[in-house]
């Protein structure tokens, strides 16, 4: 055995821990407090978005400089999403972005890129579900905000 110059402090610490409160947060009985700007599920505001149909709008189309958006076919969220989780679908005659949360990586680049702030962030994080279709967030055409 190695000669000890001092006793390792772990013996006392281990014994004293039997009487101290454990450091575990007992989720799901106790929920953690997230900061306000945590990057969780994104929430989409229909009235601010402005997608007009001028073509197929594929990802490798002409490059758009975000500063020059004046109101025509935006689709910047589609172009900038690293995971290709946003696609434009037609909902009651209007074209709207649909976000798929089974592909989303929650980077919130779409929140930053949208020139009109139509996509907002929220702190709702309990997205686990048994049905994959529940993860595809279709935009509701007439409401101010889609349900989170």
């Amino acid at each position, binding site marked *: 055995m190695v000669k000890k*110059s001092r006793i390792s402090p*772990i013996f006392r*610490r281990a014994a004293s821990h039997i009487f101290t409160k454990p*450091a575990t947060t007992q989720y799901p009985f106790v929920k953690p407090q997230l900061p306000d700007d945590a990057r969780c599920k994104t929430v989409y505001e229909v009235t601010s978005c402005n997608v007009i149909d001028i073509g197929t709008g594929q990802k490798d189309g002409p490059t758009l400089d975000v500063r020059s958006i004046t109101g025509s076919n935006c689709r910047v969220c589609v172009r900038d999403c*690293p995971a290709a989780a946003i696609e434009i679908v037609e909902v009651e005659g209007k074209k709207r972005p649909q976000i798929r949360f089974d592909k989303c*990586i929650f980077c*919130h680049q779409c929140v930053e890129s949208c020139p009109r702030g139509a996509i907002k962030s929220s702190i709702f994080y309990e997205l686990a579900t048994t049905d994959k279709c529940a993860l595809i967030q279709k935009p509701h055409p007439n409401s101010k905000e889609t349900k989170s």
Partner: protein
Amino acid sequence: MSNNKIDILSVVASKLGNRVQIQPGYLSTGTIIAQNGLHRNVLKTMIDADEKTGITAITGLDFGENLGVYYHVHTSNAFVTIKAEVPKDNPKIQTIIDLHPGAVFHELEVADLLGVVFEGHPTSGHFVLSENWPDGVYPLRKNVKANEVKLVPTPKSEEITLPENERLVKIIIGPQHPALLEPEKFAVTVDGEIVTKVEPRIGYVHRGIEKATESRTYLQDVYLVERICGICNSIHAAGFVECVEKIAKIEVPPRAKYLRVIALELNRLHSHLLTLGHAGLEIGYETLFQYFWRDREPIMDLIELTSGNRVYSSLMTIGGVRRDIKDTDIPKIKTTLKDLRGKLPFYRQVYENEPSLKLRMKNVGVLKRADALKLSVVGPVARGSGVDVDVRKDEPYEAYAEIPFKEIVYTTGDTWARMNVRMDEVEESINIIEYAIDNLPSGQFRIITPRSVPAGEAVNRVEAPRGELFYYVRSNGTDMPDRVKVRTPTFANIPAFLKTAIGESIADVPANFVSLDPCFSCTDR
């Protein structure tokens, strides 16, 4: 550690000036264009002049008719790129593994992914690609589309070459093994209990990220590159973003530089605490593992406070950082760091005095300084063997030139020294963050940049928690990169493990292995 700085370019110019073309100041210290096997002469001149010369990476590129082979060489105070080209229909080039043994892995990778044949370096089988990848199809070539490749059926039984001597036993560790966090295979040949040879097979986590970056825009690539590794994610993003900013000649505001330093050092803190805990688990010390990870949780909460997510902070973007630190958060950051600093003396004493820990860690996996230099290891593995390489000091980036901190070097070279290097670096990181918060300059934290990047190329080196991380980006004027090359620190350190395991007991292999802090997602990309 020479006191007089060697001007490596003039040394090369004096010996071979008329046969090679030298461009000083281009791509860091300079670029040397050497054809027809002259890259060996250039490299030999540099090795003779400076003992700390080593290969950082070998990049293979596809230029259409030719294949480029770029050797990125680091010396004690310079970073030089040697460019060579071979025609695509006869891609032969001479090997350099006799001059520098640390180049073995790099040459194998370029041979596997681009089809360059290195004369004098026999390659058998795939190195990074899987067994059912068809021969003759090289994924990094421009004409190959990854989703159109037809895989061949897996060969029936993988040939395990049994050792010639009857007494030797071959034990295969991996790919699935509780000791390894990620799958890799190591075939260890033992004589009784002593290891005689280790043969690695990497590539189980290869996702083809370098090829994937070529079909995404720069902005999307920042997020893709961040996901090469789950632990050292910020530093990958930082390395890529700085490289792109060098090509586009974008100057980031000073506040953004300090904020980047804070994010990177928080990343380093949580990574080192993870490794220190994981080392405890490997030697059977579960209690130490639980204590370290309990103390790591407040750091994860800090990362969530500053960036919005506990693991992938995604703070870096081209032109700065994505969000600012709020003044209301600063007291909480300072309190958490003060608490962590108060816990460190306990862990230091455990490492000094705990008998069973010292029995498992001292004199295990010894890497001598000469071997460390020859194999060009990086990071805490090198600093534990007396080699003082730290990119934050050798080639400061971001705001590291203005922040005072110590470089930690131990000389014994065993597992215990490497773990102590990481523990002391935890304290240094706390110092750096506190200094950065106290001296945060005011102003913008981000500038808006155009989406497309002008044509050009750049190299960039940053210090990841595991060692030196290298990026090479080549742009062709559009908004998608032409070639992104990543050389991760564990890729450079695995040859060191192959060397240190020999001659020691097989029961020491887990402790030895975890001390080099392997991250196989980084290695395989």
